[in-house]
């Protein structure tokens, strides 16, 4: 069976679903951020797949590159916020972080 667009879309969809489950069920803030990374990767796989099988050229790849850049920025700021929350509350359980500052 030839590898087609659907194969890549299935992988992207499963990445997205597992990311969604991670974001909704984790209590650990770092775990939530990992879920966000999974969701962004699922979207990126779809971008590259549609670019290869539907559009041609490199526009989808450039879009995926921008997504990677923004994901890196999001990870840096998100983890800085996690560290700040840890300093304030001595835990990174997202249920207990309910104040903007002490």
């Amino acid at each position, binding site marked *: *069976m*030839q*590898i087609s*667009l*659907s*194969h*890549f*879309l*299935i*992988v992207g*969809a*499963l*990445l997205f*679903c*597992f*990311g*969604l*489950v991670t974001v*909704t*069920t*984790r*209590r*650990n803030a*770092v*775990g939530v951020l*990992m879920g966000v*990374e*999974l969701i962004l*990767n699922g979207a*990126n*796989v779809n971008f*590259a797949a549609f670019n*290869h*099988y*539907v*559009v*041609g*050229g*490199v526009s989808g*790849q*450039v879009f995926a*590159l*921008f997504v*990677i*850049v*923004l*994901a*890196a*920025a999001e*990870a*840096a*700021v998100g*983890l*800085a*916020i*996690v*560290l*700040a929350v*840890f*300093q304030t509350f001595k835990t990174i359980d997202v249920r207990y972080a309910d104040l903007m500052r002490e």
Partner: protein
Amino acid sequence: MTQTTGKILGWILGTALATGFVVVMGQLAIVPAMKAMPPGETTATGLAEVLFYVIAGLTIAGAAGVALSRNILYSAIGLLAALLGAGALYVFLAADFLAVAQLLVYIGGVLVLVLFAVMLTNRITEITVSNASLGLWGGAMLFVAVAPVLLAVALVTPWETITPAAAAYTTETIGDGLLTRWLLPFEIASMVLLATLVGAVVIARKEIKAD
């Protein structure tokens, strides 16, 4: 003691499942493909397909590990597998520059950052680095609700596909595009990165309290 026994049983079961998977895959896919294939060019496509399934399985297994693992360090390892697999899938999609960017930015940058955050925010003396999850049933129901819809869309929709272009180096085209057609988003992305740099330092620094 029972926990250790359970762990050992789990590892044995996992190894048996993995071995069984490889054997069954070999019987079902690889051996018939080798037999049916006349020697020559077609062997390469068969190998590519097997490789695709292996890498897709690695990616999805890693993602499942992130979602289900009880230990956040194992979750980070699962994230490593998922990101590596996604990077390898880009190679299948003739996106070589994207694959290398994924490797450098995600694995070299984001994953290391995540590991740093794990190490800095958990007490290392605790043996099990906690990664408790609430409502695994809720998560399972969410998965059951969302996954079939997305899979059905991916499978049923009659996508208007083109014949994919042969694999070629994309770096030059992307570089040209970033400095002509996508110049504005490129510059905005650099501003965003600068703001991120400053913002992350400001947020994460230790506040000096005036007594």
